């Protein structure tokens, strides 16, 4: 796969927290680039800083220093109001759990993004239905989240994350509450939609098997990006349990999208 336009670029991003024993570096000097149409997995052990990194990419958390450029705009320099607008317009997000608004049906949850962006017209409604149908939820459109399985809810969340044509789609452990078969289905669909719609996608996961469908794997450890897997063979090997993610890692590298 050939990606040329960087939708997302981070430069020397640092996130620190004060503690009794001094400053804790949750994310330390992370620079990465993700191109439009590229699906990247961010993996690493618990506490490696991947969720903090994802929160900063989602404009939910400000970095202590560094740049996060989304379509050329630095998220670190936006005020609260602008960050809300950025999340609404340019970012799609799926979470581990509690993804959906419980009193809105599947289609209403998806349409919510269009409502927020003042784009809920006939075309938008049709697109929401088509996207849900594409995700195998044609019969579940008017069901409430409580009437759907975890996998179905995740697929609705994926539709919601994509419906407003965001530049960046983020997924935080999207398969955490799913069985293996459903997890594979969800990530495969997610990946194919990101590729089709030419979005930049980042998935945080601790389950290496889910890397099967991504274009690149970035490994974090102790707040730093420590390794990048680019070749299909390496990624497949990683996903099938052939090697540890943090094995043979060169330190201090800066990772970017392959040209």
């Amino acid at each position, binding site marked *: 796969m050939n990606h040329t336009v960087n939708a997302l670029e981070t430069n020397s991003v640092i996130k620190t927290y004060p503690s009794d024993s001094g400053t804790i570096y949750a994310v330390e000097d992370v620079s990465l680039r993700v191109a439009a149409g590229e699906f990247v997995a961010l993996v690493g052990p618990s506490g490696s800083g991947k969720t903090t990194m994802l*929160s900063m990419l989602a404009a*939910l958390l400000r970095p202590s220093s560094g740049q996060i450029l989304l379509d050329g705009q630095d998220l670190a320099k936006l005020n609260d109001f602008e960050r809300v607008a950025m999340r609404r317009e340019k970012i799609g997000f799926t979470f581990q759990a509690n993804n959906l*608004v419980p*009193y809105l049906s599947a289609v209403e949850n998806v349409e919510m993004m269009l409502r*927020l962006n003042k784009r809920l017209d006939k075309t938008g409604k049709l697109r929401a239905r088509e996207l849900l149908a594409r995700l195998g939820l044609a019969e579940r459109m008017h069901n409430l989240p409580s009437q759907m399985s975890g996998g179905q809810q995740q697929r609705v969340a994926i539709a919601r994350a994509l419906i407003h044509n965001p530049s960046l789609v983020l997924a935080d452990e999207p398969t955490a509450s799913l069985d293996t078969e459903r997890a594979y289905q969800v990530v495969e669909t997610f990946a194919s939609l990101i590729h089709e719609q030419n979005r930049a996608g980042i998935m945080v996961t601790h389950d290496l098997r889910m890397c099967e469908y991504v274009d690149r794997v970035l490994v974090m450890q102790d707040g730093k990006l420590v390794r990048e897997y680019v070749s299909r063979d390496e990624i497949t090997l990683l996903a099938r349990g052939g090697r540890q993610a943090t094995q043979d890692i060169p330190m201090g590298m800066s990772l970017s999208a392959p040209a």
Partner: protein
Amino acid sequence: MNNLFQISGYLAVKEIWRNRGRFLLISLVIALITLLVLFIAALGEGLGNGNREYISKLDAQFIVYQAKSDLLIPASRLGVDRVDAIRDVVGVADAGMLGTSGATMVLADDEKPLKVALLGIQPGHTGEPKVVDGLQLGTGLTDEVLIDRNTALRSGLEIGDTVSLRTTQGTEEEIFNLQVVGVTDGQQYSLQPSIFVSFDTWDNIRPKSEAEKNFANPVANVVLVKLTDPEQADVVRQALTSQVENIDVATLTEAIQALPGYSAQQSTLNTQGAFTLIIGLLVIGGFFQIQILQKVAQIGVLKAIGTANPIVAAATILQIVVVTFIGVAIGGLMAFLFSLSFPPTVPIVFNGTTSAVAVIALLLIGPLGGLVSIRYAVRIEPLKALGLSS
């Protein structure tokens, strides 16, 4: 701004509709609080009205009492000479004597006797209520009587009927028969329905001690004063107190406040009403606070996907307003339906102004009670709500 109201309205209505059982429950609690507040207000109005109705409807500006009678009508004694002196004061258009006492109205054999306020007035002078049906009283010592609407309702008497009044004369009870010539609107006095007779008739039939029986000079309790120009009330008041000896002058408002037990009764009921509103405030506030606590993750998701704080706040306010409005509407309807079933003896009066004030207060306690939860909703951090914070 338009989008704000559209989205917040959409979210608020959807949530209420999809959780209608839960929201209806709190609406019903608000309805019961509304019912209680409205009934307390109506009871206050009814009891107050029963005490003050005749006085508050008087076409007079002042009530003149015997000096040092503490503005207590039964304790005041004013002779006929005082009325003449009062009428001579410049600025006084008219003055009428008022004698008050009680009497028992003897009804048909199978009915309980009715206790009424027996009021002696001077026909054609201030103090005589206008009839809504029939004729005004004739002058002099007659056997004519006016009954107020409450007396008519409770006794079933009509114009032309004969009223039998039982009073104590010395040590014996006597029956006086009078003819109903007119019916006035509600004119309760001292929490009793009223009947009006000419002052001389009143003096003849009012309960008397043995000593009073042969007393020749009738004595009124108070004198009701109507002014030529009510704007000059202060000047005339001064003139009255300086030119007529041994009197106290009170406005109608002062006279009402001085009615025995009136202020204490009203303040008790007002306090009850206020406390009920405070309870309502806490109930609504508590409900929405608990609801917001249950919705932290959901609000976190909404904020994470780009829902602005004003939308979250407006949706919460709208929900509170809708739920409160439905509750108050149900409560108001229940109060109205209940009121239809009350007999006229129950002192409950749904006065428009009092009820409107209660309803507005009830509608305000919703948003007020919900302020804390709105503040909480606005302060929810999506990062923490979604468990993404380190």
